[in-house]
């Protein structure tokens, strides 16, 4: 077993300084922001974030200072054995460990450089065991018969624990309450930003006129759902027709068009990619490119390509046909679906390819002996063996298609094509949620719950079907 003695490290020094500086900055910012506010606000618990920040800053500073102290102690111990800068350390003592860092670090750095040159140190700047034993004969690994003890050289960092040879337990083998400590940050974050919102959103969807700023509402009601579905009107006679006439149909079209098209296309492409020899890697990379793009940016590119004086109209000789701004709803669906398919294909290809590479070649050889046709091979061997991946892709892409939003923003820069009286004719369910989020929170919540239920039903349905069709 290799044991290295770490005499000194400049990194530790820098690390401690960084801790202190970062802590000071956080503390400064936090304090500054706390000072800005009136005391009343602090009492009402509105500025928890700043308190937390200042606290974090203090913790960081403490860690840094402790590091300085600890490093100083280490230095003194090292000085005892090394002897090269004992004077310095003695001179400054514990109280001035901060100053002691600098000379020690530099001296040891010079020392190390020289020793490296002499070939006494390994590349990473630590003394090898053999060398240590050679230069300091008083420390020797082995059995000390006089004291009946095993002597092993260990790092000064955790010399207390270094000899533990019994009572070692596999943490996996017992009930370890420390697990909850490790999980604590995640559990806190998940409950604040995942579990609580879920419950709260369902709750809000049943409240009347929820105001997010104050949290006030006018009693519980079921009318949010009936209102967004256009079944009832509000008290002031307002009627919601966009959700039923635009948001739901548009989303459903996105789902039933783009999911099958992109999945089948991706399957064909990955089978083809898997079968070719030349340029396979390059083509694979090219097909992955749409994944690493900014959805908004490429949406804008598509809106330029489909512009009335754009390249699509030029190539297909349909001059001045309007696809994007001012287009009919059904015409505008074409670029939208095309863009969604284009951008969703790379992920699918990647998953399918990794699945294809896992299929045993023997199946194909057996099919070859039976001289099965290509279509048969694809349909009878590849697809069944790929069915877990296909199921995964279908579930994720169905969920993704139900939540379509970025594509609409990228292409149309708004909920509609600005045709037909400016109706939000390209609106999707998620678009509706975001639009009403801060003004009509109850309705947005109702729409979100609606979406949630649909997605749950769909996923459950797919799992039910998959029990029969998927071969694991």
């Amino acid at each position: 077993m290799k044991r290295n003695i770490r005499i000194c490290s400049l990194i530790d020094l820098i690390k401690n300084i960084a801790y202190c500086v970062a802590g000071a900055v956080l503390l400064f910012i936090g304090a500054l922001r706390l000072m800005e506010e009136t005391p009343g606000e602090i009492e009402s618990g509105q500025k928890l974030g700043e308190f937390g920040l200042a606290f974090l800053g203090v913790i960081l500073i403490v860690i840094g200072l402790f590091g300085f102290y600890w490093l100083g102690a280490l230095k003194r111990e090292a000085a005892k054995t090394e002897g090269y800068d004992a004077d310095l350390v003695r001179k400054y003592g514990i109280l001035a460990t901060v100053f002691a860092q600098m000379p020690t670090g530099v001296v040891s750095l010079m020392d190390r450089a020289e020793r490296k040159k002499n070939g006494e140190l390994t590349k990473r700047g630590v003394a090898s065991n053999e060398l240590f034993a050679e230069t300091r004969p008083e420390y020797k690994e082995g059995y000390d018969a006089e004291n009946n003890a095993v002597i092993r050289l260990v790092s000064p960092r955790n010399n207390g624990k270094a000899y533990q040879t019994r009572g070692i337990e596999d943490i996996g083998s017992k009930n370890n309450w420390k697990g909850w400590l490790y999980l604590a940050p995640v559990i806190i974050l998940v409950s604040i930003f995942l579990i609580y919102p879920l419950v709260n959103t369902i709750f809000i969807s049943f409240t009347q006129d929820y105001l997010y700023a104050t949290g006030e509402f006018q009693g519980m009601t079921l009318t949010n759902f009936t209102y967004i579905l256009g079944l009832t009107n509000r008290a002031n006679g307002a009627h919601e027709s966009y959700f039923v006439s635009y948001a739901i149909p548009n989303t459903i079209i996105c789902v039933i068009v783009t999911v099958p098209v992109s999945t089948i296309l991706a399957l064909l492409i990955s089978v083809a990619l898997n079968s070719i020899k030349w340029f396979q890697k390059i083509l694979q990379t090219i097909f992955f490119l749409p994944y690493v793009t900014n959805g908004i940016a490429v949406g804008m590119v598509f809106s330029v390509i489909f512009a009335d004086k754009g390249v699509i109209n030029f190539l297909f000789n349909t001059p001045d046909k309007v696809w994007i701004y001012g287009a009919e709803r059904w015409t505008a669906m074409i670029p939208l679906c095309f863009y969604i398919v284009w951008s969703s294909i790379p992920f699918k290809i990647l998953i399918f390819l990794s699945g294809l590479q896992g299929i045993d070649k023997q199946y194909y050889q057996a099919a070859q002996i039976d001289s099965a046709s290509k279509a048969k091979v694809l349909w009878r061997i590849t697809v069944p063996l790929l069915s877990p991946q296909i199921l995964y892709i279908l579930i994720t892409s169905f969920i993704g298609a139900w939540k379509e939003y970025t594509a609409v923003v990228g292409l149309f820069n708004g909920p509609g094509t600005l045709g037909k009286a400016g109706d939000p004719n390209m609106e999707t369910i998620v678009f509706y949620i975001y639009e009403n989020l801060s003004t009509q929170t109850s309705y947005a919540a109702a729409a979100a719950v609606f979406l949630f239920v649909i997605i749950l039903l769909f996923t459950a349905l797919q799992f039910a079907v998959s029990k029969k069709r998927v071969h694991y």
Partner: protein
Amino acid sequence: MANEQTNLENVSREKYIDFRYVKVNNEIVLSLDEAGKTVDAIKRAEKVSHIIVTVFTYIFILLLALVVVFPFYWMIITSLKQNEEINGAVQTFFPTIVMWSNYVHVFQVFDFGTYMFNTIVVAIFSTLGTLLTTILAAFAFARLRFKGRDAVFAIFLMTMMIPGEMMVISNYITVASFGWIGEGQTIFDAYLSMIVPFWTSVFYIYLLRQNFKQIPNELYLAAKVDGKSDWSFLWKVMVPLASPTLISITILKFMGTWNSYVWPNLVTSKREYRLISNGLRSSAFVDIDAGITAYGYQMAATVLVTVPLFLLFIFFRKYIMKGVGRAGIKG
């Protein structure tokens, strides 16, 4: 010799059929299109059909690859065109006059530096937080055994099914109650509201847990013999061994921040606090003389937004594709 042969014959009859000693069955029917052909002819036909299939495969793939690449190509050349050329009746596939000045104009109009800075700050801090929480949680799920672990893990996995839109509404309210949104929002508030809610990701915890589970238990015992605590074992052994996954997570998280649009748009009150996607869509790239949207400027801006992602992809292709691909491998 003869003796040996009969011996062989006996053995083969007993155990398996040796085709050397079996007469060809008269009932075997060759398929019609192979009738009367020599082996060479059949082989040649197979070769030809193989070549044809390969050629068609390549044509199919290359055509689709063209469709995939075309938007990128069009983005770049449009960003270098004059406005008259973009709106012309005849579309050119290479700019007649290369207009580098589009980019100069975009740098003046589009506050690229600010958006870029915001995006990078948010990306770095949300990635750091995510890595920390993910490593700790994955370690607990993969290595430690305690009551209720599997129940918590199951709940975590279930939350992956919930659409994020469910959370957005309440998270908005939560963040608002922290005082990070609303009147008098500072840049620091804006950062906090864009970073803190994304400090955890169940999916990455799942990914890293699978990775941690593959690390053999012997390493843990060896570390214990060396006097390492659980804590230092995690950071000195597990984390370095899982570094490819961690790099994948970092890059995917970075890309996620680069592409995030909805949340920053919701929680920021000022234009200067927003991220790059918001800036791109909300900036008006208008040609001052004509008063219409100048696609040249717009595309130059999209090129600026896309190029950093592409660079990231070029340098970390392996990690990105592995990280994304792992999602599909059943664990």
